[in-house]
Structure formats: structure tokens, C-alpha cells
């Protein structure tokens, strides 16, 4: 304990130097900005900033790059809540209840809950990195293909819980998402599947353009349609801050979201998107009245926002402790460290204590900065949506196009977003939820890849899924969850028959 305090002291001494504080602030500001701009993501920003870091001292460089990453998690929720447009893929589920609250005139409360949940998650995750980084990181190395299959199956079962309409429609949406995920190059043979010879589809259908089309553009269309009848959408009716009841409901959800975010964030490919989906499903399952979800439940904001921030920061654990980057941004950070001649890995804590502890301390400071930055902004943001919609919607569409284009610098992504927007409009007219479709799109390709790989390695023996303890446990859990979801539906069906 004393050693830990001494280490933290080292870290804070490094992090509070004027240069490092300034770099931390720069990173957080930039991150908030790219987070607010839909589509424009932290990966592109970190890549662009990399040459700048060549001339910086390595700790300062990492502090800034890290700030961009977790800063974007804060910013991403802002547009999700205000205009139903996920600024980052990890804010997709925040749209569901966040925007519902905004429509009820409670945008201020929703934004405040998102920011505070993120702060809590950031603080806990930072503590987790400080306390048990290397130990936690080694968990990631216990997972093999069969175990990933089980995790994904659990995720897909949870996706059914995500929807608040009929189970049949939710399953249909997941399957549609999985089908979309099949497009692209087959991983085993290198063959093209359903690409129609279009180069832009060789690497599959991107998640971000689809998410922005399904949520953002279809929302614009629905609003324009509805506005023919009514006035502008979200007037601020309530006070800006969350009520005591809000906080009471959000607090336990935040804790659960944080833990889930850390657990999933350290797995390769985990990042911050999957934890946010998972946290939302979990809250909905635990809620006494799941019908509130999608209609402005505070837990539906607090949990995924905590989870995405925890997931984003937990990604630093395998990166720093093992040198294993779980996502593209961490890969960029490894690159930035290596340019300075620093090898991430288990020795980094012993050999470069200033860097490791300085980064940890800066993350905590950065999270605090973000809340300080974001809370006063809420009043401003909320006023933004009181602008006449005829001015707001062209701006939304322009930012969507810029953001999506910047993903791969390709116009094809804009076309995909536009098509997804139309499809999203039709789906919402049919009362089909887009969230399960997106989860299918993310998890489908991962499921196929790991399933085929697990069987390939086992020589076609299906027993790998039940003989590996992690896989067996998770699959059993999925089966139980599925039974809980399906049984009431079956019972209801029977009751209807009797009538």
C-alpha cells in the first residue's frame, strides 16, 4: 500500500508539471471535439497527431494521445443525446434512452448523468490499472477461439434483451445484422463474398456508416416528417441537472457498467463499443420495469456511458502491461512509444515508472478536466437543439458526411450511410429496432471467424466448446438467459391461444 502511494505520488509529480497538464488539456479538448463531430473518430485524430509527438517528451506525448481517446468517449455521447446521432460507435446505445430524455425536455439531466457516469468509470478504471494492471492483463491471455465464441453467443443472446419490442423482430434484426456482416473477404480462403465486385465492399460493410445511417439519418427523416404537424422537437422543460431520484437510479447502474467495461475492455477487439451494448442489456434485464427502457431510463444512459469509458481506458491495461494493443488506437500508441525507443511490456512499470505512473495519474486528472469542461457546456449544448430544426438538420447531415468520409477517406462510406439511413427509416416505420442489427453486424463476423477457427484447431471436434471451462461456463449462462427471455413469451403466447 505504501509502495502504491509512493508510485501514485511519482505519477502525480510527473502529471502536474505545467507542460504535461497543458498536453492533457489539449488532448481532452481535441478528444471532446472529435467525439462531438459524428463519425470523425479518435483513431484518425491520434494518427494525425503522431508526428507531433516525435518532438515531445514520451510521457507528455502519451498523455496527450490518451486524452484524445478517452475525451472522445465523453464527446460522443453529446450528439447521441441531443440529436440521436452517435458521435462514436460506442455511443450508439446512449441514443436509445439519452435521446428519449432529450425529447422529454430533459437533455441537461441526460448529459450530466453521462458525464458523471464517465467520470466514475474513469476513476475506477484508473485505480484498476494502478492496482492490478499486469494481473488483469494476463486474463486476456486465457481466452482462445472457443471462449470467444461463447462470449459472442452470450452477447447475441443479450441483444435479444436489447430490443423493447417483440422478440421475433429482435431476432430478425440480429440475423439481418449478421448477414450484413458476411459481406467482404472470407478470412479462411481469401474469397470475396457478396461484394458484387465492388472494391469498397472487399473489407466488409463498416459499422460506423451503418450506425450513423440507421440512427442519425433516419432520425432526421422522421423528424422532418413529424414536424409537418408539430413544432420543433426538444424544448427544455426541466431544470438542467438530474434529480435526486435520477442519481439514485443511475448510481448502481454506473457501478455495474464500469465493472463490465473493464472486463470486456481488456479482451482483444473489446474496445468500448461492445461493453456499452453489453451494459445496456444487463441493465434492462435487471430492471424491475424493463418497459421504461428506450423511453428515457437514466440507467440506460449511465450504464453504457460508464462501460464505454471504462472499456476505453481498460484497453491500456494489456497495451501497457503486455504490449498487446487490443484495438487500433492502442496500436498507434505502441507505435508512438516505440518511436521514442520505449518497449511496452511487463518491464515498463519497473523501467519507466515515471511514464507508467505519470500516464495513470494524468488519466485521472484528464477525466476530472473533462467533467469540468463538459458540465458548464451542457447549458450551451441544450440551447443548440432549441435552434430551429430547418437550420439544425442540414448541419447534422453535413457533419455526418464529413465524419464518415474521414473514416477511410472514401466516398463509398457516405453511400453506405445514405442507404443505411433509408433502410433505418423503413425499419423504424415497421417498429424494428436498429440496435440489435448493429450488434449482429459487429458480432456476426467475429462469431464466424472464431467458430471456424476453433473447429479448425480442434480438428472439427465440437467438444472444444464444452471442455474448455471458460467457454462451457459462458455457454451455460447464455442458455439460462435465453430461457428466461423466451419462457414468458411462450407463456404469453399460450395465454393468448386460450383466449
Amino acid at each position, binding site marked *: 500500500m505504501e509502495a502504491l502511494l509512493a508510485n501514485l505520488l511519482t505519477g502525480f509529480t510527473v502529471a502536474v508539471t505545467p507542460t504535461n497538464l497543458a498536453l492533457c488539456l489539449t488532448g481532452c479538448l481535441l478528444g471532446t471535439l472529435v467525439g462531438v463531430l459524428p463519425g470523425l473518430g479518435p483513431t484518425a485524430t491520434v494518427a494525425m497527431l503522431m508526428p507531433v509527438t516525435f518532438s515531445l517528451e514520451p510521457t507528455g506525448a502519451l498523455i496527450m494521445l490518451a486524452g484524445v481517446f478517452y475525451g472522445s468517449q465523453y464527446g460522443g455521447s453529446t450528439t447521441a443525446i441531443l440529436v440521436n446521432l452517435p458521435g462514436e460507435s460506442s455511443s450508439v446505445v446512449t441514443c436509445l434512452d439519452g435521446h428519449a430524455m432529450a425529447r422529454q425536455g430533459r437533455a441537461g439531466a441526460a448529459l450530466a448523468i453521462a458525464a458523471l457516469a464517465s467520470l466514475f468509470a474513469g476513476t475506477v478504471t484508473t485505480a484498476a490499472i494502478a492496482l492490478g494492471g499486469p494481473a488483469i492483463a494476463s486474463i486476456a491471455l486465457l481466452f482462445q477461439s472457443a471462449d470467444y465464441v461463447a462470449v459472442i453467443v452470450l452477447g447475441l443472446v443479450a441483444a435479444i434483451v436489447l430490443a423493447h419490442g417483440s422478440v421475433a423482430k429482435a431476432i430478425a434484426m440480429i440475423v439481418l445484422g449478421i448477414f450484413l456482416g458476411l459481406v467482404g473477404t472470407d*478470412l479462411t480462403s481469401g474469397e470475396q463474398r457478396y461484394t458484387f465486385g465492388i472494391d469498397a465492399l472487399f473489407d466488409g460493410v463498416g459499422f460506423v456508416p451503418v450506425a450513423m445511417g440507421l440512427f442519425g439519418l433516419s432520425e432526421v427523416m422522421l423528424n422532418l416528417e413529424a414536424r409537418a404537424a408539430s413544432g420543433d422537437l426538444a424544448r427544455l422543460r426541466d431544470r438542467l441537472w438530474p434529480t435526486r431520484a435520477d442519481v439514485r437510479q443511475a448510481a448502481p447502474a454506473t457501478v455495474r457498467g464500469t465493472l463490465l467495461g473493464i472486463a470486456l475492455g481488456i479482451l482483444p477487439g473489446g474496445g468500448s463499443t461492445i461493453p456499452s451494448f453489453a451494459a445496456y442489456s444487463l441493465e434492462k434485464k435487471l430492471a424491475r420495469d424493463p418497459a421504461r427502457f428506450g423511453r428515457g431510463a437514466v440507467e440506460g444512459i449511465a450504464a453504457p456511458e460508464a462501460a464505454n469509458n471504462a472499456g476505453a481506458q481498460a484497453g491500456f491495461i494489456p497495451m501497457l502491461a503486455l*504490449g498487446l494493443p487490443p484495438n487500433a488506437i492502442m496500436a498507434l500508441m505502441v507505435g508512438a512509444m516505440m518511436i521514442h525507443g520505449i518497449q511496452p511490456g511487463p518491464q515498463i512499470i519497473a523501467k519507466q515508472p515515471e511514464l507508467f505512473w505519470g500516464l495513470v495519474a494524468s488519466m485521472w486528472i484528464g477525466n476530472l478536466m473533462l467533467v469540468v469542461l463538459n458540465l458548464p457546456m451542457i447549458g450551451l449544448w441544450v440551447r443548440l437543439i432549441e435552434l430551429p430544426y430547418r437550420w439544425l438538420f442540414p448541419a447534422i447531415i453535413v457533419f455526418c458526411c464529413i465524419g464518415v468520409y474521414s473514416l477511410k*477517406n472514401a466516398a463509398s462510406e457516405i453511400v453506405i450511410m445514405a442507404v443505411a439511413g433509408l433502410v433505418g427509416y423503413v425499419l423504424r416505420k415497421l417498429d424494428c429496432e436498429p440496435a440489435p442489427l448493429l450488434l449482429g453486424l459487429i458480432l456476426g463476423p467475429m462469431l464466424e471467424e472464431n467458430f471456424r477457427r476453433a473447429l479448425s484447431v480442434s480438428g472439427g471436434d465440437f467438444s472444444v466448446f464444452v471442455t474448455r471451462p471458460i467457454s462451457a461456463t459462458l455457454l451455460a449462462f447464455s442458455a439460462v438467459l435465453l430461457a428466461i427471455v423466451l419462457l414468458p413469451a411462450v407463456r404469453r403466447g399460450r395465454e393468448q391461444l386460450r383466449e
Partner: protein
Amino acid sequence: MKPVIAAAAALACMTPALALAAEAPRGYPLKPVRMIMPNAPGSGTDTLGRIVAHGLGETLGQQVIIDNRPGAGGTLGMEIGRNANPDGYTVIFASPPALTVAPFVQRRQPFDPMKDFEYITTIGVTPNVLVVSPSSGIGSVAELIDMARARKGAINMASAGPGSQSHLAGALLLSLGRFESLHVPFKGGAAVPSVMTGESHWSINPAPSVIGLLKTGKVRAIAQTLPKRTALLPDMPAVAETVPGYSYSAWNGIIAPRATPGPILVRLREAVIAVMNRPDTRSQMAAQATDILVTTPEEFRRMVQETITNNVKLVKALGLTAE
């Protein structure tokens, strides 16, 4: 009407001026230069490109902007590069996957590596490293081959996907070393972690992505893929010491769209060479386990032709071509 005419006249005057500037390297570059990167940000190739672009910007006195155009194995970026205006303001950061593999695995050949580009110079060579999981008990290339022969196909080779460097480097070893191993493809960087978990037994991957992991003790490097030992990876034998003739490493270099004016190509080549000679570039490249190598355009062209010949042979043998 008048302003329109004036604008047209101004344009007409400007066009020859620009054309002149493009022909004579004097004053070149007058604006930022775009460097097309057919790889995703954060990839190993992207990191090397950013080091070069940073130095090049300082040498040329104009920023060199990395334009990431990943997709379809690098084909998308290469096509954009080929179709760009050959005025010296677009160059391409070339690597073997995009230039020598991707065009030969698709139904229609999207570009001709030998005819569509002007070659400027290579910047360096990055070896690959053969890693094994410590739990496999394999300590050398010879032991790997013996074990694979003894346990026919029950030894897995992880790769970064069909047609990737990692796959082709492994396939070449299987063919020259005359042994079999089950190919388990992963997406991108997940191949090495699978060796760390023990799910796969061995994998060949670019050195920069591997060297940081060696100290974890969860993965063991037994050889590198340059024809000889290198000072970059001391104490690491070359695969060729066990399997004579084996060599599979990645060069990187700068190319430009065809018909880029000769004087500009010369200017760019001088600038790249100056960058590669800088001590800070040298140490940054060494940190990426990359050996600096500058060549004449003809040597570069010959290297590419040779790489194409070798890779096409491998790709055909593996049945990766579309036909």
C-alpha cells in the same frame, strides 16, 4: 459576365505557370505533398511512413501529409495513387502486400505495378520474426520442422490472414523446409496473441509488432527472415541458417504516379536520402527494427519485379488467385 471572363483569363494565365513549375524542380514543392498510405493508421507500415513523411516535410520545406487509403489489401490506395495527377504533389508509400500481392489475387488486375508507377527509392527493409509459444517446447527452426513432421499437421501456424506477409512467409518456409502445418488465419494483429495463449504453435510476423512482446516470456522468437543475421536483432539466428535459401522480408519505398516529371523525381529522391541519413531517423527506424536501405530507381524496380515473381508463385501454389 465580366467577372466570369476575368476569372477565366486568370485561370488561363495560371495553368501554364503551374505546368512550368511542375516541369522545373526550382521552387518545388510550392504546396504540401500528399503521401498516399494504402494501409490503416497505426499499422507497422503506416508508422514507418509517418517517420519518413515527418522528416521529408522538414527537408522539402513543405508539409508531407499522410493520406490513409486502406482497403482491399491496399488496392484502393494504389489505384488512387495511380490515377493521381503526376505533378509531384502525390507520392505513394509502397510495401509488398499492396504492390506485389493484392493486384494478383483479384479477378481483374486493378493496376500494373511495373508500368503504372515511377520508382524513387526504397527506404528500408523490415525483417519478419518467427515466434513460437513457449509451451510448445520448440527452441529452434530445426526443432519446429522435426516436430511438425512427427505430428503431421497437428502443429498450427497462425497468420494475419490469407495472402498476408505472415501467411506467405510461412508458406515459403513450409515449402522450402518441406513440412506441413495447419494454417490458422487471424485478422491483423491477433496472430501473435494466439501464439501467446498457446492456441497456435508458431507464426511469422513483422519484427516491430513482435519484439516488444518477447520480454513478456509468453512468446519466444526463434529466428528472423533476413538472409543473414542482423545487428537489429542480435542473437537471433536467420531462418536461412537452417533452411538454406530462405528469405522473406518487407521493403518499403516511395513511388509516384507514372509520368511524374524526372527532375521532381530526382529532387524527391535526394530529399528522401537526406532524411534517411539523419541520426533521428536512423534511431527511429532502428526502434521499428527496420534496416535503412536506399536504392537507385532501377534497383528498386528490380527488387519489386523479383518480389512479384516470388509472391505470385506462392499465391498460385496456395490457390489464392481468383481464377
